[in-house]
């Protein structure tokens, strides 16, 4: 069989690989065949009949969305019969459609509206009474308006195939056929909003967005989700300096159209009522609003004094601040405060992995590898809960490429359903359990290994040895917590490693050591809440906090600076796979400043010169000085993701091994920040622990 098929469409010669569906093949010739139910990547339906075309030598019109191209096929998409058929289909769809476009969220970006304009009749011939069914609320997130539904089954399929849930189904038949949620009158699901996003009409709407605006009244800003470490691109819809919507309809970014509940809706912390909008300074034991200059002076005065008397500083950085901020912060700590006591909440043993893989190329997995590689091994992670996008990639890989998935976890996970094999272990038995998969893994042509914090220290080296012993190409990724957990490591928010994992001369105190140090004089916490989990041993340290909210840690502070969130600043972040992407500021919240600016102002106040605090300038410095970060700028500036290069060289282990403990967020939690997202708090499934979603 030849590997190229020749056909003629509207007189144009077209080539396509065998098996290509006609609807896709014609795109190459710039021809559009309209479709509602056909959706790239999902199962075929052939239900809407919008894509009918004429194919010579066949008596009836043919459905282009299920018809594979054939040699010599002659297709006409622009004949009176085809036009009439399309008109007819649009007309059928509109018979029971309420035509309430003026109040419909989808108006302006509705596929039915577009098709009606392009292919429909100008007027209605339908004189009968329309069928009405009342609108229903299925969850805090999902609303369903049956009359608007065109029964394209996209929502059912995306939930079923894409999310690996079957939260949506269909009941009744004929014109009464109706989409229903899994709990009959409500949903119990991931609340990802994929169904809403994929709905071509306004039948599914979101509780967060409905009736708030019209699409054309928003500014659309493409940036990176601030929640988990997968680094999904999210396009924020902004009106009057308020984020109203998140989606990634244009499929730009490494996540395509995917977003989980956090990426899609949990931007709402930005305008939470408790958002800090003014610096706070402790006076007479109470935190009181102060001006920026007062607050900055207060900090500079104290730090200078502490420094002069040789006091001890501790600096805790953030897993959500940008690379530029992290870079600047460690520089500040090391050069201005003169300390290596700097750390952050670590969630995965990246340094050991990079050391174990030192000198190898092609050994660090990208997010795309989870979709493209023939086999994936997941060790010690509930991927669907903790790494939603990677889980989506894995499911798509199984669906589209019959990839083999292997799971080694302490308990059941959703990936078991698509797994070629799953093994269970008890704590400590992680590596031993892999032996039961050895034979199967050896038979795979290639492998991607993702591991959680259950594998750390020496176990990482053993895992890599295990991978080497399989005799197949293996790529790895250490699973992490937050949007810039990886960047915090790469930029040297570590007591023993500087930017690019270079050893520092005298390692400082780790996060745990700082908190346990009774003689700590100053603690500076940026975008983290260590006192939410730990107690501070020192009795009266001078605590400075930069955050969005008055966290447990901020409550202990002498000075609190109101920080801007990731959605309010520019810079870069690095996801768990080392893919660097750019943030774009969507809004500005009055009274706040990006952490970078706060650092810069503090440096100036201290009389230190750390260079200008402009993200793009600092990124240039990072590119020039941080190992692996010499990535091509054009990729970033055009909104793409560039993976950092592998290391070639030894990464020293910390002087004293410490247990890494990831946050293990679920779909409905996002550390302290998540507590300020109304969406994450109101969905029934929260707190996530109650929700298994398997």
């Amino acid at each position, binding site marked *: 069989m030849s590997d190229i098929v020749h056909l003629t469409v509207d007189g144009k010669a077209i080539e396509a690989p065998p098996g290509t569906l006609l609807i896709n093949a014609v795109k190459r010739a710039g021809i559009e065949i309209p479709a509602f139910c056909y959706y790239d990547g999902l199962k075929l339906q052939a239900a809407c009949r919008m894509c009918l075309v004429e194919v010579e030598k066949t008596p009836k019109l043919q459905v282009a969305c299920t018809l594979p191209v054939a040699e010599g096929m002659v297709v006409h998409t622009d004949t009176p019969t085809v036009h009439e058929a399309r008109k007819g289909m649009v007309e059928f769809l509109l018979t029971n459609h309420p035509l309430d476009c003026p109040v419909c969220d989808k108006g302006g970006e509705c596929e039915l509206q577009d098709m009606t304009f392009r292919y429909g009749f100008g007027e209605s011939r339908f004189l009968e009474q329309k069928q009405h069914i009342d609108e229903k609320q299925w969850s805090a997130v999902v609303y369903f308006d049956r009359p608007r539904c065109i029964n394209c089954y996209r929502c059912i399929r995306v939930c079923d195939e894409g999310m690996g849930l079957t939260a949506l189904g269909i009941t009744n038949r004929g*014109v009464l056929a109706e989409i229903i949620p899994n709990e009959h009158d409500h949903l119990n699901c991931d609340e990802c909003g994929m169904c809403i996003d994929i709905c071509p009409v306004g039948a599914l709407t979101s509780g967060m967005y409905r009736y708030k605006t019209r699409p054309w009244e928003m500014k659309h800003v493409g940036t990176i989700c601030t929640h988990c470490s997968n680094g999904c691109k999210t396009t924020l819809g902004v009106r009057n300096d308020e984020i109203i919507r998140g989606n990634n309809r244009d499929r730009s970014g490494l996540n395509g159209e995917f977003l989980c509940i956090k990426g899609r809706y949990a931007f709402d912390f930005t305008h939470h009522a408790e958002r800090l909008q003014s610096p706070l300074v402790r006076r007479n034991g109470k935190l009181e609003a102060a001006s920026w200059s007062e607050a900055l002076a207060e900090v500079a005065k104290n730090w200078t004094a502490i420094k002069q008397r040789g006091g001890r500083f501790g600096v805790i950085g953030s897993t959500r601040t940008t690379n530029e901020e992290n870079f600047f912060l460690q520089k500040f700590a090391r050069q201005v405060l003169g300390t290596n006591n700097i750390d952050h909440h670590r969630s995965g043993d990246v340094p050991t992995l990079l050391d174990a893989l030192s000198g190898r190329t092609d050994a660090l997995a990208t997010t795309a590898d989870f979709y493209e590689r023939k086999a994936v091994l997941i060790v010690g992670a509930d991927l669907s809960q903790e790494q939603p996008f990677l889980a989506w990639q894995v499911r798509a890989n199984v669906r589209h490429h019959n990839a083999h998935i292997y799971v080694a976890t302490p308990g059941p996970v959703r990936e078991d359903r698509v797994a070629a094999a799953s093994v269970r272990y008890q704590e400590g038995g992680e590596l031993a359990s892999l032996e039961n998969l050895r034979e199967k893994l050896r038979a795979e042509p290639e492998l991607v290994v993702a591991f959680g914090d259950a594998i750390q220290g020496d176990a990482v080296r053993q895992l890599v040895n295990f991978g080497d012993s399989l005799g197949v190409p293996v790529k790895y990724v250490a699973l992490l917590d937050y949007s810039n957990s990886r960047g915090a490591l790469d930029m040297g928010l570590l007591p023993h490693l500087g930017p690019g994992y270079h050893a520092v001369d005298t390692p400082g105190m780790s996060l745990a050591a700082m908190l346990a140090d009774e003689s700590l004089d100053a603690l500076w916490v940026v975008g983290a809440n260590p006192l939410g989990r730990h107690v501070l041993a020192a009795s009266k340290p001078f605590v400075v906090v930069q955050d969005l909210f008055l966290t447990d840690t901020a409550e202990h502070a002498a000075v609190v600076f109101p920080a801007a969130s990731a959605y309010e600043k520019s810079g870069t972040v690095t996801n768990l796979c080392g893919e660097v992407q750019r943030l774009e500021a969507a809004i500005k919240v009055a009274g706040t400043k990006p952490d970078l600016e706060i650092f810069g102002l503090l440096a100036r106040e201290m009389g230190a010169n750390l260079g200008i605090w402009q993200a793009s300038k600092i990124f240039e410095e990072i590119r020039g000085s941080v190992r692996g970060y010499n990535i091509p700028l054009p990729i970033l500036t055009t909104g793409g993701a560039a993976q950092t290069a592998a290391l070639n060289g030894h990464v020293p282990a910390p002087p004293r091994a410490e247990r890494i403990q990831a946050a293990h967020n679920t779909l409905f939690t996002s550390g302290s920040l998540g507590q300020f997202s109304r969406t994450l708090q109101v969905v029934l499934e929260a707190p996530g622990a109650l929700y298994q979603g398997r």
Partner: protein
Amino acid sequence: MLYNEPNPLETRVLTKRFGIPNSEKAEVYVANGGYQAFLKATGMPPEKIIEEVKVSNLRGRGGAGFPTGLKWSFVPRTSPKPKYLICNADESEPGTCKDRLLMEYDPHQLIEGMLIGGLAVDSHKGYIYIRGEYRYLITMMEHAIDDAYAHGWLGKNIQGTGFDFDLYVHTGAGAYECGEETALLDSIEGKRGVPRMKPPFPAVAGAWGCPTLLNNVETYSAVPNIIRDGGAAFAALGTPKNGGTRLVCLSGHVNKPGVYEIPLGYPMLEFIEKFGGGVRGGKKLKAVIPGGSSCPVLTASECDIIMDYDTLAKAGSMLGSGGMVVIDEDTCMVKAALRIMRFYAHESCGWCVPCREGTTWLRKMLQRFHDGMGQASDIPIIGQVSKNMLGRTFCALGDAAAMPTISIVEKFREEFEAHLDGRPCPYEHKPAMALA
């Protein structure tokens, strides 16, 4: 008791045992010549069985009239997968009521037909999919199957021939669409009864993705006769390419409605006269629905034809499922169209747009029209909407709804016009509904 008096003019091949008491007993069937064809078939190579069915010119009795032998030859009998044999006893086409008689009065003939099908395609498991409304038949069929097991006509090593075959009854839940073969397969698999994409055809990938032979009750019931007497003898009963006899379900405005077995090629008007005893009340014939409500309607003047698949096709209609409805001169054709469309709107599965929306639109439009609120522009719209469905739906239900409607608007346009301008229905003499 039979439903209607048999007519001496019938050619009783499939119905020859009708009326024998205790038909569900395997012994009774055997005593009347039953299961001999199966035993004969066990001695035949499968290709020969299929060849015999091809020679018989048997065509599917479920509606589409596809040559049965050809269908059997499509099943890859050497496939390593299990092969399934399914009998379509969903009998839901309005006007059709023959399959139930075949199951009630000669259930073992069906079982024997399926056994022979099993031999032909190397299948060892069969299902009879009976429509849910046939509650009583489900029990009867189960008794017959139990008795066949008890007497060694089903199960392991049937009658020492080394052939194994298990047969089950599966019930529908009241959906016309589940008679469509692929929707039936989904229903058997426990899913929502919506049709599947074709290809692949059931012969290649049917039940649980395995090769599946699916035929109507009457089709399977014809098979023992073909094997016993030879395909040629069966073919000779009918016309070229239209072998054997058919059970025609005669209903509507005739004096003697009933199910009659006649050879293919029997003249239609003669059938109405000699079997149906003519149009009821000596009225004039207006129209005939020749093979179930899905078929285009024939006007009285178009009825002077013989009844076989090809002749009906040439006349622009279909032999269909054998459900023949006779319509007399006092019938309102607008109302007939409405009655038909109410059925299809109710039965559309809702999978595809043109059928789901089109049937309901037409139902509402025809209702309004018949109620006296029609507009002249509705008449062409009814035809156009039907044509927008025809050939464009996912499965043939949409066509089944469109075809009779198109034929009625085209052939009885003046009756539609007679309903206009608020005039009462000329047949019901009732005033038009008051405008709300």
